[in-house]
Structures are given as C-alpha cells and as structure tokens.
C-alpha cells in the first residue's frame, strides 16, 4: 500500500521508490476485513473498484456482527451508517431512547438501513442523493489480503517502483546520528535511501531492531496476544458482513470471501493454550478447513514514535491492535497518506516529525479506546478473561465517555481519528450500555409527531431493503472473481 500510494501521488521527478521484499517471509492475510475508508485510499491512488474486487475475491461489507459479547445469546451489528436522522436538531437515538425507557420502542436496528440490509443478506450501492435515507450508509470490502498485496505490487511496478527480491541481513547507520544509510542484502548488495519505510510487520526490522524506538504496551487493556487462522470452504449465502463471536478466551472471526471463508481465533495465551485454541477454532467452523491452522503472536500497543530519524513505521511495525474492528488496513492507510501529506523534502524537519507522531498516536489511541469498550462493557462472567475485562481499569478518556453515555446517552464527538457517533452508538447499545436518561430537549417535541417521523423512516428502510438484490446476486453481476491476473487497468491522472 505504501509503495503504491507514494508512486501514485508523488510526481516521478520527485521520487525513486524501491520496494524490498522477501518471498521467504510470508504474509499473514487469510481474509481481510476493511472499513469504508479504504475506498478513499483506492480512489486517491486511482484504483478501479470493480476490477480490484474481481481480482481479490472480494465481497461487500456493511458492518460487523458481534455475537455473544455482552451476554451469551446476544447479537448486534456495528454497521457503516447512522440510525435515522436528527429530529428537530436532536439526535435520533435520543428520541428513540425516550420511547425505549417508556417500554414502547421498536428495536433501534429498525432505523438503520445497513443493519436491515445485512440481516437480510441484501446489498446495493448507496444512492447518490445525499438527502435520501438510501445514501446514508457506507460499505467496505472483505477480500484476500495476499491478492490485494499482489494487485498493488503490479500497480506499483507499473508506476515505476523498483522491486528488489531478497532478504535484508544488515542495516548501516550514520555514525554521527544513527540515521539509516543503507540496507545490506543477503547477496551482498546494498540499497541506499533517503527515507526508509518499515513495513516489516510486528518485529519492526528498522524501527525497533535497528533504531530501538520503544513500544507502549496495552496488554492490560487488550489482553489477547495470539491468533490462529484457517480458511474454510464456503457455505451458504455470502454474508455482507464480518462476524466476531466472543469466546472463552477471546473472540473468533469469520470473513466471507467469494471463493472461501476466512476464520481465526484471537485469544489470550494466559487463558488458553495454542493447541486448545486451534482445536476450538476447527470445531467451530461452518465449512471444511482448507489448510493447516497458522499461528500469530503479538503484543497490543503502539510504537512510541512511528517516525524516528529517517525511518517511518507503517502497518504492524507501528503498532498492533487486534482486528476486532477491522482497523489494520485503515492504520496502514492513515500512516502512509499522512506521511505523503507531511513530506516536503528529505531533510525531515523535526517539527514535521513531531506533528506526524502526534497524529499517528492519536489515531491509535482512539481506536484502542473503542476496542477496549467491546471487552469492558460486558455482563459475562462465564470465563476469567471476561471477569478480568469487566473489572479492569480503563483509560480515563474512555471512562468519561462511557460514564456520560450511561448517564444520559450523550456521545462525545471528536474531529480527527476513527469512529464517529454511529459506530459508538452501535457498540454502546449492542453491548447493553443503556443510558439511564434521555436528552431533556426531547420533551419539548410533540410525541405523536416524532412517532410519525420515526415510523416513516422505518417504513422507508423496510421498502428499500425489500427491493434490493441479495448480496450473492449483486456480486455475480458486479464483480465476479476473475480467474486471470490482470494488469491493473486503472489510470493515474
């Protein structure tokens, strides 16, 4: 993603990009679930969405279904879209809350188009008219990350990125200040550069092993430190959503692609052994496994500085947050696009480096808080991990946010960073964080009038969903998986 973005957005006169990659070192991706921001990235660098989907076995994603999180038996969807629209300047959920507290509300889900679409396994592209309820949702993709990487590699090479196959065995640093001068390859060749982007994954070949930047650990808030992944045979209709099911020591993902399903179990080694995790995962697949389970180890946290000297860590080298909200690719994207926005020349002004690091830290911290909410806001006491998370001390930023919501359904907005009000609302309500009171302004409105407007929204959504094609039908018509590897035909302006 980094090479493609740099090549596509910087004019050739300003850059020479060299991608060092080793075939020996595998990539993680089984199936990757994304969030709608990836569409901005694809558009910004000039990728054709349909072609990309066909090339990566992609399916559409309207959100994530969370199963068994607050209580066993619960299910809610965090979808990419809002509940209703503001009524008289007051948030829709406040009007709903009044009715819910009076015991006369329909489920909140009825007022969310993408949730209703997901539950019905339907899909259609959002309408163009921004005033229409039919445009008030976003979508993302579930795709094969390895295919996406290959696709971007071809795209980058076509734009002049030089790709060097081989393994890095040494790093030369400038004596006076430790800046990286060159990489030493296994075959003895050296690769010099002005700026080194570390996409080596969790180990952080340059940012950590060479520059010893340091890591801020968040295991006390996000105790999972292992994952085991396995693809399985496709069964039944393809769901336009990813599923995350809370388990005895973490949670299990299910990501449907066109040709198969990606599965994994994210768990805490403190509460479950690797063998048990693999066994449980295999026993809970809905289709036959297609490969041996693969294991991953990680530590939740963030690199203290994403940009250190002339090295920028992008992706897992800059931090690890479990894929519960499908943020891995988003964090790569934000790392590289912010870098492109901030680059002026090769002197790397410390004022710019500081600003970049503040930004990336803010992005990580805000995602972190959102993830912690899923673990903390639970009523489960059937397993030690849930007992722990329910009682753990949470970051102050999240504690205030959660307390204020519980008190009166008030959401605290911020300008930058991921997850807007609809996302927080989905998770609060889905995790049974039910406010004790509603916004008093709601009482200044006529109940019958508001009831009618709410009912109109609900009906509009139901009618729209009824008319939509199923997700499978839509995929077959729009972007059936391609059997040949095509050169990206997308053009960069």
């Amino acid at each position, binding site marked *: 993603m980094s090479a493609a973005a740099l090549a596509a957005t910087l*004019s050739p006169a*300003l850059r020479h990009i060299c991608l060092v990659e080793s075939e020996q070192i595998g990539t993680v991706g089984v199936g990757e679930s994304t969030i709608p921001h990836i569409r901005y990235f694809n558009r910004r660098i000039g990728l054709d969405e349909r072609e990309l989907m066909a090339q990566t076995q992609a399916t559409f994603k309207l959100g994530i279904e969370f199963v068994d999180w607050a209580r066993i038996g619960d299910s809610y969807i965090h979808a990419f879209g809002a509940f209703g629209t503001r009524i008289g300047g007051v948030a829709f959920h406040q009007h709903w809350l009044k009715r819910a507290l009076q015991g006369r509300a329909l489920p909140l889900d009825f007022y969310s188009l993408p949730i209703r679409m997901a539950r019905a396994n339907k899909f259609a592209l959002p309408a163009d008219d921004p005033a229409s309820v039919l445009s008030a949702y976003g979508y993302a993709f579930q795709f094969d990350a390895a295919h996406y990487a290959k696709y971007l590699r071809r795209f980058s090479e076509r734009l002049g990125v030089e790709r060097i196959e081989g393994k890095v065995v040494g790093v030369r640093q400038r004596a006076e200040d430790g800046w990286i001068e060159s990489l030493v390859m296994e075959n003895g060749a050296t690769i010099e550069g002005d700026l080194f982007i570390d996409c080596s994954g969790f180990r952080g070949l340059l940012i950590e092993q060479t520059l010893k930047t340091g890591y801020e650990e968040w295991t006390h808030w996000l105790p999972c430190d292992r994952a085991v992944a396995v693809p399985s045979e496709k069964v039944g209709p393809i769901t336009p959503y990813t599923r995350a099911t809370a388990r005895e020591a973490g949670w299990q993902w299910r990501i449907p692609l066109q040709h198969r399903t990606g599965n994994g179990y994210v768990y805490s080694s403190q509460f479950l052994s690797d063998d048990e995790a693999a066994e449980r995962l295999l026993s809970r697949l809905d289709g036959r496994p297609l490969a041996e389970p693969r294991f991953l180890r990680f530590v939740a946290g963030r690199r203290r500085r994403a940009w250190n000297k002339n090295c920028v860590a992008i992706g897992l080298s800059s931090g690890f947050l479990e894929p519960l909200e499908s943020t891995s690719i988003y964090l790569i994207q934000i790392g590289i696009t912010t870098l492109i*926005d901030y680059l002026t020349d090769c002197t790397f002004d410390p*004022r*710019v480096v500081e600003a970049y690091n503040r930004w990336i830290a803010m992005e990580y911290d805000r995602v972190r808080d959102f993830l912690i909410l899923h673990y903390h806001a639970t009523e489960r006491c059937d397993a030690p991990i849930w007992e722990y998370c329910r009682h753990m001390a949470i970051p102050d930023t999240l504690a205030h946010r959660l*307390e204020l919501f519980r008190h009166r359904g008030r959401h605290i907005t911020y300008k930058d960073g991921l997850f807007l009000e609809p996302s927080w609302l989905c998770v609060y309500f889905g995790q049974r964080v039910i406010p004790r009171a509603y916004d008093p302004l709601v*009482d200044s409105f006529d109940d019958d009038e508001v009831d009618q407007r709410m009912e109109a929204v609900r009906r509009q959504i139901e009618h729209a969903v009824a008319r939509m094609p199923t997700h499978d039908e839509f995929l077959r018509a729009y972007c059936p998986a391609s059997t040949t590897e095509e050169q990206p035909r997308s053009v960069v302006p």
Partner: protein
Amino acid sequence: MTALRRIVIVGEDCNAWLAAASLKRAFGRQGLEVIVLVSERPAQAAIGRWTLPSLRGLHSLLGINEVEFVCRTNATFKLASEHRGWQHISSRYLHVHGDIGVQLGGLPFYKYLLFRAVQGQAESPEAYSLGAIAARMGRFARPTRRKPLADSFTYAFHVDETLLTAYLREHAAALGVATRCGQVAEIAYAEDGTITALILGSGEQLAGDFFIDCSGREAVLMSRISSTAWEDWRAWLPNDRALSVRIPAVAEPRPVTETIARSTGWIWRFPLAQSAVAGYVYCSALLSDAQAFDELAQLVSVDDGETAVQRFSQGRRQEFWTRNCLAIGETAVQLEPLLGANLHLAQIGIGMFIELFPVTSSCRLEAIEYNRFMCEQADSLRDFTIAHYRVGTTITGDYWQAIQAAPLPARLQQKLDLYLATSRIHLFDNETFDEVDWAWVLLGSGCVPDQVGVHERSVLARVNGEQVAVLKAQIERLAASMPRHVDFVQQHHKRA
C-alpha cells in the same frame, strides 16, 4: 417536566438576555421558569460590537427576524476585518468571512497562493475572494446559491451595544422570561454546596434550581462559590482597557471592521447605520486612559460623543460550571474583542448548556464535559487572537517586544510549526475558526511557510494560470454588480 424548574440568571448584559431567551425557548414548553436578576447599577459596556457570522444561526434558533434585528440595533453588515499596521507601519490585510478562490486539483486555493509565495511570487488572496473585493468596493449583498461564487462568503454584523441589549431583553420578555431587580447580598447553600437561593439586599430570597452568572467581571456568584483559579493570559495578551466612543457617521461606510495596531494596543472603527463607533484597546500599565483618549482623538472625531471605558484582565476561569452554577460571558472568559468572538463564545456556552441540560439534580458529569469542551473553545479563540500579534510582525517597542518574547501556548506553537514547515493548517477539536480563517491571517500577514508539501507541489505545478485569471475577472464583475453597502443598509431601515 425537566429536572430544573427554575433558573436564575444574574446580570443584564446581552449575554444574560441571550441565555434567558435561549433557555426559555428550549424548555419553556416544559414549564421551565427563567428569571433574570438585574442590578440597579449595570457595569459599563462598550458602545458597539462586531460579531461573527454565527450570530445568524442564533437568529433562526430564537425566532428573530433578521431585518428587524438590523433595524433595531442600528446595524450594518460586516464582510471582513481589515488589520492595518500589525506587521509594519504600512501593512494592511483583510480577514474575510468567506472563501479564498475555488478548489484546485482537490486542494484549497490558498495552497496555490502559498506555493507561489514560497517561489517568491507572493500575492494577496483578496483578488480571489468575492467578500474581499466587495468589502474594498464598499458593496454588499446577501450570499445566494443562484449564481456561481455568489455564496462564497458569509457575513456578520456591527451593532449598537445598548440597542442590542435592549432588543434581546425585549425578545426574552416576549418569550416569557421574568425580571427582578436587586443586588445579591448573600447566597444560601444546601448541605452539598449547591446554591438554593440568592438573598437580595432587600432581604428577599430568590430561590432557584440552577444559577447562571452573567454579571461580568464582578462574577457575583462564581467568585463566591468557585474556588478554582483563574488562568492568566496576560503574558500573551496584556491589554486590559477598552475605550469606546461614538463618532459621526461616515459618508460611504464599508462593510468592514478596521483595526489599526498602535505602540501599546490597537484602535478600531466600524460604521453603524446612523453613526459610527471607534475604540482603543490598550495596556493600562503603558498608557493612561487620558493618553488613550488623546491618541484616539487624533484619528477620529470624538467631540461630544458618548464614551465608555471597560476594564478587564485577559484569561479564563478554570471551571465554567461549578455545582449548580454556570459562568457565561466575561464571568467565564475575558478576551479582547479583536476577533469579535465574545458573543459567539457566550452563544456556544449557552448552546452547550442546553445540550447538557441536567437530567437529575446532580450534574457532576455534565459539568466535567461542559468544562472540557468550553475550555478548548476558549483556548482556541485565545490562540487565534495571539496569532494576530505574532505572525509576520516586525514592530518594535516595549509592548510589542514583550509580547513577542512570551513562549507560545503549546498548541499554537504546534500549529505554527507545522504550518511553517509544510504549509498545513491543522485544526484541533472544537475550534471556532476554520482553516480558511487562519489562511487569511497567515497569508495576509506575509507569513510564508518554508515549503509546500511534496504531493501538493506536484498538483499545484500543473495549475493553469489562465483559469486563475478568469476567476479573478469573474469575481471582480460579480462584486461590481452588488449594491452599495450604504444603500443596502438604508433600504433595510426603510423597509422596517
């Protein structure tokens, strides 16, 4: 029925009436009673003020008719502020309430100007702004979507303070706000420290569930119940006096607030429909009131005019909401009027109070959230004000040098650092002014960044100069077709 049945507001400036009217309008239907306690000796206010465009939003919220508002407050329109002498003796630039140019290759137009400035071809943004050209020509019309570019600006007002206060008071009364007269002699508290009643000089008790302190600097309630400290901004903003005088109307009033930097502060001037107002904001340690008056008299005709002097000390309360008492206006924040944002800040404060209107008798969480939000708002206004003194300035003298020497607030330093290094203008959460406002001030003051981002350079290098020239001509034509500001204002007053 809301958790609060009666709110008592102490004060009688326009903030007090604004608060009263807004609360009554929001919750009056639910039976909320709003009482304003006015004293017999109101503090002296400035003779006039300039506002931000956000006041228009308030009009629709309160059900105020704009034509009526303009007539009743002797108002004129404001498209821009003109800042003269802030960088050197002959510098002048406009800060327009509106866009600069149109987007180019997905980038804001000001980036193009910065790109050219870095190459040594600096150009004022004014030629690319309809609001600026109209302001320079003394023309005005309301923005409209009917023609391209004709909605590329917005506007604010110049108003007579006494008339504004009277108008808002009348409006509040019409909404059902009650008024009492008296001084607060003592405060009666409940066991938990919340206020239960104000005991007036007459011995009468004025009970309430919630109290809003709009008493200005005196902070009649806050000074007694809040132990939290005052955050002092004087190292950056040493001015502590505001002199204002009414002056004769000018022949061709421009829709512009003028400010002129002086050796110990700045002088301002703007037109009203029937007269004009001028003033001097200065630092009393370096300039006496009499000296200030003399200096002002050299620039404008102050003969026999009404005058007013206000004292203040720039800074803010660390907590605006303490238990069941809220500070609005100068009780909460004292900031010189350079941005015209004080009424806006009160408006934001009242709006946030309505959004966080207590649901139970305990409002601890609401207070925490309110204070967090409002402190960010206030600090961002402080930072933007400070920036006017700090960017591109080469003025010498004790006053200016002391201001230059003070280390900047961290966030402002970060913002300027990033701008200087990359030309990016970063906004933090809850800032009133937008990227384009900063661009007006940074470009206008000649503060050119070291470099424009490498990606932006590759986009901007492809910009077609002809397209830019066409835009300039188009704006010129459009501005010339607008009515004269003086005619537009007079027409309003005739219509009413």
